[in-house]
């Protein structure tokens, strides 16, 4: 089946971020298709290139990146939610006149249309709350 996940939880702030990553691994291991992961609300922080948790805490950003490489996942971060929360790509930083960019590799910024498209083309939609 084709799944889309919507993630509202920030890593290290709400357990939903870790639950979503575990769920994604399980569904891929079961042979299902992960059509898209859409990071919305505080979930945009899952795509931070600057996160540096202590060595003995799990690194959720790196977890998504590894899964993305392995399965060519479509990891989409809502651009409007990201701007409000200080998560910018290099081109967005330049356009907005901000001093740096912090979007991690493997993620892309896009509009809410990508959420709508994912809802329409997936068999299942699972939301991970904040």
């Amino acid at each position: 089946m084709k799944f889309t996940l919507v993630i509202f939880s920030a890593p290290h702030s709400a357990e939903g971020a870790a639950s979503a990553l575990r769920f994604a691994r399980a569904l891929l291991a079961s042979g299902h298709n992960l059509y898209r992961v859409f990071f919305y609300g505080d979930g945009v922080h899952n795509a931070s290139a600057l996160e540096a948790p202590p060595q003995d805490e799990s690194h959720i950003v790196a977890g998504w990146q590894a899964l993305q490489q392995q399965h060519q996942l479509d990891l989409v971060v809502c651009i409007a939610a990201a701007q409000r929360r200080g998560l910018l790509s290099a081109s967005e930083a330049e356009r907005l006149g901000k001093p740096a960019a912090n979007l991690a590799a493997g993620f892309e910024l896009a509009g809410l249309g990508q959420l709508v498209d994912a809802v329409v083309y997936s068999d299942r939609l699972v939301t991970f709350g904040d």
Partner: protein
Amino acid sequence: MSKSILALCRRPPYGDALAREGLEAVLAAAAMEQAPVLLFMHDGVFQLLKDQNAKSIEQKSVRRNLEALSIFGIDKLYVCQHSLEKRNLNCGQLRLPGIAIELIADPGRFIAAFDSVLSF
């Protein structure tokens, strides 16, 4: 491809970002001609209250987003009757120009009829 989509709106308007960002997603879907059905439940019914003056806390009113729904052809909202009664509210306090409100007595059966549910 046509799918029935429900947007479940359960948060009050200004305490956190969920109500506003939920409505932004609904408007985006409606603009792509995939208008979801909106069901307001629990504290989500407070999004509809008239006479919100969010300037007093330096925010924008969510009523603006709600009023934009009719531009995109959404002319009816669903509201959980029990949630309304529990908060001593009536439909007259929620009126939106050009948009009808229908009360839902059995939200469980209502929700189960959709292909996809977005929770906000």
